């Protein structure tokens, strides 16, 4: 049975979610609920699978069948569900540490196998829950709890990573533009094979505070750095390097090179 409105998808007896004020995860949670409703999915035929981390809490507050698994392991659990139950739509939700560090091997293999999963990565480029440690997507030079003198390693481009591993649908959005994000999530849910959406989102507690950014400025900065793919392509190369293309990067009309 399809839900009439996204509010039906709130798991009221578990409410409210524990996110810090200004965290982007609440916006992503709302976008997921609305995307499920808009695509006409029956919520009792949607399986949400998460690992550990702040983003891993998102499915807990959505009234679908939810598997909240050990750190990094959401994808193989989701594989077990998706392979046995093609009647269910399986969505994996996790953070950058969860999905691309401890769970990185599972991520690339799921993309390679073209498993029928939608993987949403809330990328705030930090370990939020555990106290602000460097993640595989923390930009070079940023100071973190484990890189007090600045990160010296290169970060992953998660979209390029899964595209390289064979993902059929790859998109990037931000919580700064929730409506556009909903659209991307809806398209990902409509893709029959492996789909991946990277969601850029702020962690005001572990990143914003360290940088002296207010939650609003944090969002604004993120908004300024991101540019729709079509416009990004027209930018001069030095400006491209400073901006992040968003939109459907593979699997839609906009398909093409962005790296």
């Amino acid at each position, binding site marked *: 049975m399809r839900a009439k409105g996204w509010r039906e998808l709130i*798991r009221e*007896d*578990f409410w409210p979610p524990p996110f810090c004020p200004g965290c982007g995860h609440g916006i992503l949670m709302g976008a997921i609920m609305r995307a499920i409703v808009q695509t006409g999915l029956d*919520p*009792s*035929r949607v*399986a949400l*699978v998460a690992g550990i981390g702040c983003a891993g809490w998102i499915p*807990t507050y959505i*009234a*679908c*069948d*939810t*598997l*909240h*698994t*050990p750190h990094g*392991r959401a*994808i*193989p*659990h*989701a*594989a*077990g*569900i998706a*392979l*046995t*139950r093609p*009647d*269910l739509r399986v969505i994996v939700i996790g953070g950058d540490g969860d999905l691309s560090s401890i769970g990185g*091997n*599972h991520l690339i*293999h799921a993309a390679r196998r073209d498993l029928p999963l939608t993987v949403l990565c809330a990328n705030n480029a930090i370990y939020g829950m555990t106290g602000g440690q460097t993640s595989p997507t923390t930009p070079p030079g940023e100071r973190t709890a484990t890189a007090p003198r600045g990160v010296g390693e290169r970060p992953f481009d998660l979209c390029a990573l899964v595209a390289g591993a064979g993902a059929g649908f790859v998109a990037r959005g931000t919580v700064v533009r929730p409506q556009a994000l909903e659209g991307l999530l809806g398209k990902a849910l409509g893709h029959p094979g492996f789909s991946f959406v990277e969601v850029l989102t702020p962690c005001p507690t572990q990143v914003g505070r360290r940088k002296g950014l207010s939650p609003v400025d944090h969002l604004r900065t993120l908004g300024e750095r991101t540019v729709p793919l079509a416009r990004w392509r027209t930018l001069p190369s030095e400006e491209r390097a400073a901006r992040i293309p968003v939109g459907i990067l593979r699997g839609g009309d906009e398909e093409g090179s962005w790296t």
Partner: protein
Amino acid sequence: MDERVLIQGNEAVARGAIHAGCRFFAGYPITPSSEIMHCMARTLPEVGGVFFQAEDEIAALAACVGASWAGFKSMTATSGPGFSLMQEEIGYAVMTETPVVIVDVGRAGPSTGQATKPAQGDYLQARFGSHGDYELVVLSAWSVEEAYRETVRAFNIAEELRCPVVLLLDEAVGHLREDAALVPLPVTERRKGPLGGRYFGPTPEGVAPMPPFGSGARLHVTGSTHDPTGRRMTQDPRVQGELVAWLSEKVLGRREELFRYEAWDVDDAELVLVSWGISARAARAAQLQLRQQGYPVGLFRPITLWPLAPAVLTEVLGDREVLVVEMNRGQLAHELSAMLGPERIRTLTVTDGRVISPGRVAEAALAALEGRG
């Protein structure tokens, strides 16, 4: 199905799994268990099941847990190095009360050790390997036919108790080819309802029903501490205390009915050999030979390796001297010492990657009989 066949131990495990209703297998290649995976890859598609070769053993067991919540009886098979990787997920299966069967075909360790040589060194790991306080069920087999039977029993116990069950074999039983009767055995089906909102223990009715994903229950399954509805309760000492007690007690509370064993000539014995898996075959040969020579020696063979039932052990073994025969440094002996007192426990342990020979068992038994005087 009611066949006598010449078959390998690992193949018998796969046959038992299919008979028990296993319809999902995920695994990662490893010697000496891979034949189980090969058989499942061939057979599952023919019976409407799904086979998945995972990227590692962590993913293999995780996929089994996912498939179990999707409503499919699931199994994985591995050996020591893979079994080590699975410990994280075994804890998750315990915490989420997920039925799943894990076959560990023991090889000589630690680490890579001797991949093609048998050992029984994973006993304590099977019982203790994941973090935190918990109990699960560990079964064994000393023959190909028993590997078939105990696989079916592993699935039945996993469904009844909603917990992971480990079948602990060794390379020798796994690769042994012998005559086996694959007879139909009773099979426990999953209790999928009613949808009453309480899907986790403790509940007054005992083990809660487990509706599969997609049945409208809107389940919340978490490895975090949770109440019977699945709600995360990570600050509440009462919920934590009751949940941990429940996860252990639902297993220990059934230990007498779970404890399966065989015993020979124990009543008038002055020395009882205690042995399991392939070691027990050597022990049985030695015990028969010693009896023929007039020595008062019996044999006790636990088939259920965990939980042990102290009441049964005390009743059967009385206050007799015990010689534990196993291919490790005394792991079952460690548990028996704790239960029966260390004074009467002697050990014959072999860790050279070879099956213990009956001659060595007989020698050790004679020495124990003499030392007793």
